[in-house]
């Protein structure tokens, strides 16, 4: 490429060619989708009335006159065309005044090999009492959570195990605006800073306007939050939060959607009474001494895991050297080992494998290495390995 004196011109004028066959196939698909959406629209509308008007010259002129008058009147009254939009400033104010609400929530936690744990919940929120959430997995109730700020208490009850955990909330924890089970907490977080407008769309037949933001300082790096609000009522219709969450010591992709809101719900306040049966066992939270013992045990465990991670790195490069692609694919479950990749990796030599270490940026093991490819090029990087809980073996998530 020539020296970049006129870089703007270079970027502007660069051209991409396209494959004519794929081009045509995609255009055909786009037109098909367009025709389908037109049919759907025309099934909803009634073009016959329009046709009747347009058939006669007099009705046509009369209709045009009526439209012009209506437009003039509308402009006079409202000062412009009426495009319903959300008044964002009113949204928080409005929901804050609502005494009780219900909503549904779906939480998806991603695990390796595209496995997703999906948790559905029914949620009740009442300003004077707190929140109650019934959590289901595969349609089976596995936990009921209560958060009762007025009593400075929280409970998690597991009916299947007949156990429960009781937590005392400090005044700070019980303070208003701290409850992540209350959609208003998320609403305020989203609207508390800069956001990008996502425009209008329709959710379950309701016209909504959306905004999107990142609040990495509050919810962690890479978190994306979206809020969709009914343009007619200024009430939220859906809240989506996507990010990473610590789950059993691992950071996992995590997404939840709050929807089906009933903003002025009426329900019996007795539902906020946990009423734990007598035969349920209270689970104690580990005390400080126990935590210290656990951390010693986990540091011994860590040393073993460190060695296993190093062995895994060695085994991967050995498999590449021997061109044992079945073995290689076990380390790279998300990568298709095609011929080109085989040509690159086959017969490589391991020059150096360093001591595995932990990093703030990655929750598994980082293993420094240097390898030499068949074409004599060398690669010096850090392999990112994490144990796959399902197969109980280390897989490569980066650095290769």
């Amino acid at each position, binding site marked *: *490429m*020539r*020296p*970049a004196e006129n*870089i*703007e011109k*270079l*970027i*502007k004028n*660069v*051209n*991409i*060619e*396209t*494959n004519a066959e*794929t*081009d045509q*196939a*995609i*255009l055909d*698909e*786009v*037109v098909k*989708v*367009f*025709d389908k*959406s*037109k049919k759907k*629209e025309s099934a909803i509308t009634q073009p016959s009335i329009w046709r009747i008007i347009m058939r006669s010259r007099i009705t046509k002129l009369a209709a045009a006159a009526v439209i012009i008058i209506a437009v003039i009147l509308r402009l006079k009254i409202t000062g412009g065309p009426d495009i319903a939009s959300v008044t964002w400033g009113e949204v928080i104010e409005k929901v804050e005044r609502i005494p009780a609400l219900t909503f549904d929530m779906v939480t998806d936690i*991603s695990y390796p090999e595209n496995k997703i744990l999906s948790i559905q919940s029914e949620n009740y929120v009442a300003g004077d009492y707190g929140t109650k959430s019934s959590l289901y997995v595969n349609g089976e109730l596995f936990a009921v959570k209560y958060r009762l700020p007025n009593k400075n208490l929280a409970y998690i009850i597991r009916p299947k195990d007949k156990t429960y955990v009781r937590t005392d909330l400090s005044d700070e924890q019980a303070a208003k605006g701290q409850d992540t089970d209350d959609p208003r907490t998320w609403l305020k977080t989203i609207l508390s800073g*800069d*956001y*990008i*407008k996502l*425009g*209008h*769309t*329709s959710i379950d037949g309701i016209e909504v306007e959306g905004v999107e*933001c990142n609040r990495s300082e509050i919810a962690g790096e*890479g978190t*994306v939050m979206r809020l969709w609000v009914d343009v007619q009522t200024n009430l939220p219709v859906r809240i989506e939060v*996507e990010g*990473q969450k610590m789950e059993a010591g691992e950071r996992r*992709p995590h997404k939840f959607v709050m929807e089906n809101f009933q903003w002025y719900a009426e329900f019996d306040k007795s539902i906020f009474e946990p009423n734990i049966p007598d035969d349920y066992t209270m689970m104690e939270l580990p005390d400080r001494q126990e935590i210290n013992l656990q951390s010693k045990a986990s540091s011994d465990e860590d040393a073993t895991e460190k060695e296993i991670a190093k062995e895994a790195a060695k085994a991967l490069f050995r498999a590449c050297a021997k061109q044992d692609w079945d073995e290689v694919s076990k380390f*790279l479950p*998300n*990568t*298709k080992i*095609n011929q*080109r*990749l085989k040509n*690159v990796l086959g017969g490589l030599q391991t020059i150096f494998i360093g001591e595995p270490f932990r990093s703030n940026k*990655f929750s598994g093991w980082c293993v420094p290495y240097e390898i030499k490819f068949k074409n004599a090029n060398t690669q010096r*990087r850090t392999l*990112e390995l994490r144990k796959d809980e399902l197969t109980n073996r280390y897989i*490569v*998530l*980066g*650095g*290769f």
Partner: protein
Amino acid sequence: MIEDKLLIWKFKRGSSDALCRIYEKYKGNLLRLASALLNDTAAAEDVVHDCFLSFAQSSQRLRVNGNLKSYLAASVANRARNWNRARQRRATASLNETGQIISGTKRPEQWIIYNEQVRQLNNSLAQLSYQQREVIALHLQGGMKFRAIAELQGVSINTVQSRYRYGLDKLRSILNSEAKYETSREYREAD
């Protein structure tokens, strides 16, 4: 510009010809933009494909406030950003180089045919921060004004202008160092 207004008008009234014309007019532009933002052929193709499918479905509720090119460019940028986030979430960012080896292979259904110049430019753009790359690509390839980019990125116009300026400076030095390397290699080969 007037042609675009007419095309949108016709498209909203159900004209497939208008849709075909919009597709022909902007597909190259959008593919170029998506590949600059993602530096991944297959992902860029998917993003533009999705963008056109969604555009085709939106004829009744379509509201283009600025020009059509910017509207489509913003749509591609949003999708590219989502794709990038999903890639980060999958935590396989470092495996992309392996991915590039794979996507470098010509697939039978491949849509984009790269030339060396585009490939090199995209590789250089990929060394910038995503925000800088997005500003440069949207302004120069998507034809978007700084004000519109500022709105899309949710930052001030001054931030966008500095991202553009610093991004171009960095890109210039990357391309210049590549050019020096190429020249010295040619000399070595000639010896």
